[in-house]
């Protein structure tokens, strides 16, 4: 069986400018991948490229063996990409309920199940996107992505700018989501250790290139390498 996602020699960026110099990796069905790297190395650009929102200069993307390059973003969502953008992209003029309903696709994730996962959002059902706290917005962005019933969840720095207690709550939830094993995920995180604990494999980017790939566990047990790659303790 073909891999869920296969990225081959991808060169991509914005307009004429190139951000990703040469990126290749594969992800199996149900697999989880941490995407690490310092600020500005191209992690968000890689996720946007998977969503079809950048300019692909070279290389190929394949979804279950089918080429993706010509597939527009809204079709990728329908194929099974569940995108949680870095800026969260919560809609100011939609209520929490509407965020879920407007994009819902049939599958095991229903509004009721999503609310079970994020009980905090229940009290906010009728509130508009711009009336939510940062943590609630992040939960909504994830809840919304689940409503497309994704095969692959793309999480771009979900803990960014959140208070430690909120992060803890979110991590428990993300762990629960990934534990089922039915949904694959790519997790971009600044908190490297957190990401390593949550995922099977890790990819480290530097200036648009993959500079390291290994099981997350082995990187977790090798602080020296982690430090060298990311400059974190």
């Amino acid at each position, binding site marked *: 069986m073909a891999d869920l996602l296969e990225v081959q020699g991808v060169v991509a960026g914005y307009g004429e400018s190139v951000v990703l110099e040469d990126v290749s990796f594969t992800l199996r069905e149900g697999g989880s991948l941490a995407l690490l790297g310092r600020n500005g190395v191209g992690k968000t650009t890689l996720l946007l490229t998977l969503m079809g*929102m950048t300019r692909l200069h070279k290389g190929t993307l394949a979804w279950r063996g089918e080429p993706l390059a010509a597939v527009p973003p809204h079709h*990728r*969502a329908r194929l099974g990409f569940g995108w949680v953008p870095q800026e969260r*992209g919560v*809609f*100011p*003029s*939609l209520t929490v309920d509407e965020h879920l309903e*407007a994009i819902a696709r049939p599958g095991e994730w229903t509004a009721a199940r999503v609310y079970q996962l994020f009980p905090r959002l229940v009290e906010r059902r009728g509130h508009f*996107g711009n009336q939510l706290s940062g943590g609630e917005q992040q939960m909504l962005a994830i809840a919304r992505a689940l409503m497309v019933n994704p095969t692959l969840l793309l999480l771009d720095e979900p803990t960014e700018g959140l208070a430690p207690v909120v992060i803890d709550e979110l991590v428990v939830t993300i762990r629960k989501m990934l534990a089922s094993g039915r949904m694959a995920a790519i997790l971009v995180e600044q908190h490297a250790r957190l990401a390593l604990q949550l995922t099977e494999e890790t990819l480290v980017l530097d200036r648009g290139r993959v500079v390291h790939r290994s099981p997350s566990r082995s990187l977790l047990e090798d602080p020296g390498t982690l430090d060298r790659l990311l400059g974190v303790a």
Partner: protein
Amino acid sequence: MLSALPGVLFDGVAYGSLLFLISIGLSVTLGLMNFINLAHGAFAMVGGYACVVATLRYGLPFGVALVVAFAVAAIAGGVLERVLYRRLYGRSPLDQVLFTIGLTFMSIAAATWVFGSGQQPVRLPDTLLGQTRILGVDVGIYRLFLIAIVFALASGLALLVTRTRFGARIRASVDDARTAAGLGIDVERVFSVTFTLGSGLAGLGGALGIDVLGLDPTFPLKYMVYFLLVVVVGGAGTIVGTLCAAMVLGIFDVAGKYYVPWAGAFVIYALMVALLLLFPRGLLRRIR
């Protein structure tokens, strides 16, 4: 002087209703795609001529002619969006302005060629003619009918936008087209449907407005400024904002022409300057 006020207000509201009906499509187009469609008034004109042809040439009842006007303008809008407008999305505002002003002049030339340059007559059904008395004010029955239709449509639109799934998709696309697309919303299709609906409403407004605004080939140019004012003052992409702006402009235009006829259109331009200084982003900004 003041004894005329209720009548002036009433006529202003009727006039504002028409401005709303014609401008709402423009407002949504601008809010949704940042697309500047100066030719929007041409769709209103198409509806007007469709109504004239339907009633005078084919003898259809006025009510049926209104439906025809909506349908013809909607189809014209839908087709042009597909074959022409779509190419202009994301282009510079200058390209969009030049293209749509060109389209406006083409529509004027085409209308002159087909219908001649004269004002078109309209035959209203007898039941809509004459005056009636409400709260001691004499009001034209046709204007009353106009206001009723537009308020019904505005309520319907507001329900569509605020209560339906399609409405939520429109709002999501207006808020953030990229994220909406990334979540599976076909923003292009949302836009096509909205553009078609907006053109149809403009056509309906053009037909309903023959008796109030008149109808000749210069219509799209003559009223362009009014439609743009409504959208700019109301805030692109908002139904309530567009309605408020249309009412304010309608009332002040009618009142200005009645009380200070020597000032001409100056009244509403002064009003626009004042409103834009007070609400630089429009009375209401978002689609609600």
